[in-house]
C-alpha cells in the first residue's frame, strides 16, 4: 500500500511538473498567432462552361472539394471572384457560418433598373442553407437574401435570388444595367456542430448496436449448434450409465477395494523409487565424465569472477 501511495504521489508531482512546464510554454507563446485559422481558406477556383460558372473549393471543416455552380437567369454572368471573409467582417457575423468563401458576382445583360435571377446550385447545400448578401453601402451591411431553396435531383439544392439593378442587394448601388453582388451561402455553424454531437454520437451507438445484434444472433446460433453437438454425447453417456449392470458396481467389497488401492500404491512407489535410482546411474564413460567436470569448472570461473553482481 505504501508503495502504491508513494507512486501516486510521484505521479501527481510529475503531472504538476508537466502542467507548470506547459503553462510556461503557453505564457511564452501567448502573443503568437493562432496557426489553425490560416489552414482553412476555402479559396475557390473558377471554370466557365458557356453561361455557367463553376466554383471548386474545399469548404471549412472538409477535406474534399465541392462544386458550386452559378447561373444568371434573365441576364449574363460577366465575372465572378472569390472574396475572403475579413473585408466583410462585421460584429455578429461569424466566418464559421460561411463554410465557403464569399463570391463577388458581376452580372449584366439587363436593361438599367431591370432584374435578373442568380442561381447557385450544389449538392453541398442543405435545405437549411441561406443566402446572405454583403453590401457595404447598405445599413446593416449584411442582409439575408430572400432566396428560394429548391430541391433538385441527385441531392442538389438550388438557391435562387432575384436581384434588381440599383436595388438593396446591388453593391454598386447605381442603375447602370450591371449588378454587383457579394454573396455567401450560410449554414448555422452551431446547428451543424450540435447536430454532429448528437447525430454522430448516436451514429457510433448505431454501428455498435448493429454489431451487438449480430453478436447476439451469432451467439444464439452457435450455442444452439453446440447444444446439438453435445446432445448425442450426453445421451450416449447417460445410456452407458443406465446400461451398466448395477450388480457389477455392488460386487466389489470395500475390503477388496482397499486391498487393490494398497497394492497399486506399493507398485507405483516401487516404480518411483527405481526411477530415482536410475537417475543416479550414468551410462557416460569415465572420459566423458572427466570432460564434463572440466567444462563445469571453466563455467564456474566465468560466472564466479570477482566483483560480479
Amino acid at each position: 500500500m505504501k508503495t502504491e501511495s508513494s507512486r501516486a504521489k510521484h505521479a501527481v508531482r510529475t503531472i504538476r511538473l508537466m502542467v507548470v512546464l506547459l503553462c510556461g510554454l503557453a505564457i511564452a507563446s501567448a502573443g503568437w498567432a493562432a496557426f489553425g485559422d490560416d489552414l482553412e481558406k476555402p479559396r475557390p477556383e473558377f471554370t466557365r462552361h458557356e453561361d455557367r460558372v463553376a466554383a471548386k473549393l474545399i469548404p471549412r471543416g472538409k477535406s474534399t472539394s465541392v462544386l458550386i455552380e452559378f447561373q444568371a437567369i434573365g441576364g449574363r454572368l460577366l465575372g465572378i471572384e472569390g472574396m475572403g471573409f475579413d473585408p466583410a467582417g462585421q460584429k455578429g457575423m461569424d466566418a464559421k457560418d460561411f463554410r465557403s468563401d464569399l463570391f463577388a458576382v458581376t452580372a449584366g445583360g439587363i436593361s438599367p433598373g431591370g432584374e435578373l435571377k442568380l442561381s447557385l446550385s450544389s449538392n453541398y447545400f442543405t435545405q437549411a442553407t441561406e443566402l446572405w448578401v454583403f453590401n457595404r453601402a447598405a445599413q446593416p451591411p449584411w442582409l439575408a437574401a430572400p432566396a428560394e431553396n429548391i430541391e433538385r435531383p441527385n441531392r442538389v439544392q438550388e438557391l435562387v435570388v432575384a436581384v434588381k439593378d440599383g436595388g438593396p442587394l446591388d453593391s454598386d448601388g447605381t442603375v447602370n444595367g450591371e449588378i454587383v453582388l457579394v454573396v455567401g451561402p450560410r449554414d448555422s455553424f452551431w446547428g451543424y456542430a450540435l447536430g454532429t454531437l448528437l447525430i454522430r454520437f448516436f451514429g457510433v451507438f448505431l454501428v455498435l448496436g448493429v454489431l451487438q445484434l449480430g453478436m447476439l444472433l451469432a451467439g444464439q446460433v452457435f450455442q444452439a449448434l453446440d447444444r446439438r453437438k453435445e446432445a448425442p454425447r450426453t445421451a450416449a453417456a447417460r445410456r452407458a450409465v443406465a446400461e451398466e449392470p448395477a450388480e457389477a458396481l455392488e460386487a466389489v467389497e470395500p475390503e477388496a477395494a482397499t486391498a487393490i488401492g494398497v497394492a497399486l500404491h506399493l507398485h507405483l512407489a516401487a516404480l518411483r523409487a527405481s526411477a530415482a535410482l536410475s537417475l543416479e546411474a550414468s551410462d557416460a564413460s569415465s572420459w566423458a565424465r572427466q570432460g564434463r567436470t572440466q567444462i563445469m569448472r571453466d563455467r564456474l570461473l566465468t560466472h564466479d569472477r570477482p566483483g560480479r553482481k
Partner: protein
Amino acid sequence: MSFLESLSKFVLTMGVAGFTWQQGVMLAVACILIYLALRKGFEPLLLVPIGFGMLLGNLPLAGLMDPPVYHLVVNPQTGEHSHELKEIGGLIYYIYQGVKLGIYPPLIFLGVGAMTDFGPLIANPKSILLGAAAQFGIFTTFIGALLLDFIPGLTFTVKEAASIGIIGGADGPTAIYLTARLAPHLLGPIAVAAYSYMALVPLIQPPIMKALTTRKEREVVMEQLRPVSQTEKIVFPIMVTVLVSVILPPAAPLVGMLMLGNLLRETVAMQPILNRLLKTAQNELINIVTIFLGVSVGATASGLIFLQAKTLGIVCLGLAAFCVGTAAGVVFGKIMYRTSGGKVNPLIGSAGVSAVPMAARVSQVVGQQYNPSNFLLMHAMGPNVAGVIGSAVAAGVLLAMLE
C-alpha cells in the same frame, strides 16, 4: 579564401549556427518525455521513440524531416521540362510517409488484434454499448474545442477540434490516424497528450468512478461469463469487418486490420502454420511499426508548432475528453445496472474508453477495494475491447463527416 573566411564558413555549416531557442526548448521537452518513459514508466514503448524523434526532428540543420528538393530543368533543344533531384530529403521524412498515408496505425491495430482476446465481449454482447457510451467524451470535446473560440490563440478549426476530441478515445493509433488525416500539424501535441493520458489511466479514472457510483453498486458481483466456442471466435472478426465496413467505410482500415490480427489469433489452433503470421503480427511487425510511428510523430513536433498556447489547450481538452468519456461509460454502466436489476457492476463502464488492458485493470482494482472477492477483470475486458472498436468507429464517423 582567407583563413577567417574558411573558419566562418565551417562554423556556418555547424548545427550551432542554426540553433533557435524553440529548438532548445523542444530538446528539453524531448528529454523530459524520455525521462518520464524511463524513470516513471509512462508508456515507454511509445514515449521513448516519440521523445527521441522529437530530439532528432529539432536538431538544427540536420534536416531529418526535410522533403526532397527538385530542380525544374528545361531542355534547351527540345524545350521539355523535367524535374531533377537536387536534395534527397531527410530520413524521417520518408519514415513519416507511413503516418501521412495512414499506414502505420492500421498495422498497429493488426498487432493489437493479434494480442487481444475478444471472448469476453462475445460472451456478453451488451458490453459493446459501454464501449459506445465511453466515446461521448470525443464528441463533447469536439464541441468544447470549438467553444474555446473566445480565448485568443485558442481558435480551433472543425478538423482540429475533431482531432483533439479523439484523444478521449484513449487509443493512440486511432488518434494518430485521424489527426494525420484531418490536422497533421497537430500530430505531435495530440500524440503526446493521447499517450500521456493512456499512461495516467490508473490515476485519472478511479476518482471519477468513485464519484459517480454508490458503494452498493461497486460491490456488485457479476455472473460468470458463458464459454465461447472457437468457431464463434473465428466468425466474430469476419462478421465485425463486414458489418462495420458496410455501415461505415472510413472505419474499415482500422477495424479491418484489427480483425485480421484477431482472426490470425483464433485460427492458429486450426492451422498451426498461421502461427508464423501471428507471431510476426504480435511481435516483429508491431515493434517495427511502433518505432517508425513514434520517431516520425515525435519529429513532427517542431518548436514552431509545439510551443504555442494551443498545445496547452490540447492538453487540457484531451484530459477533459478522457474524463467525460470515463464518466459517460460509468453513467451508462449505472443505467445497465438499473435495467438489469442490479446484475451489472457500473465500474466496468469506465473500461469502455479503450486503453487495453489498463482500463479493465482499473475496474478490477477499484472493484476489489470494495469487495475483495469480486473479480471484474474479464467482465471489464468486454467493454475494454469494445472501446477499441468504438474509438475506431468514432474516428470513422468523424472522417465520414469531415472528409
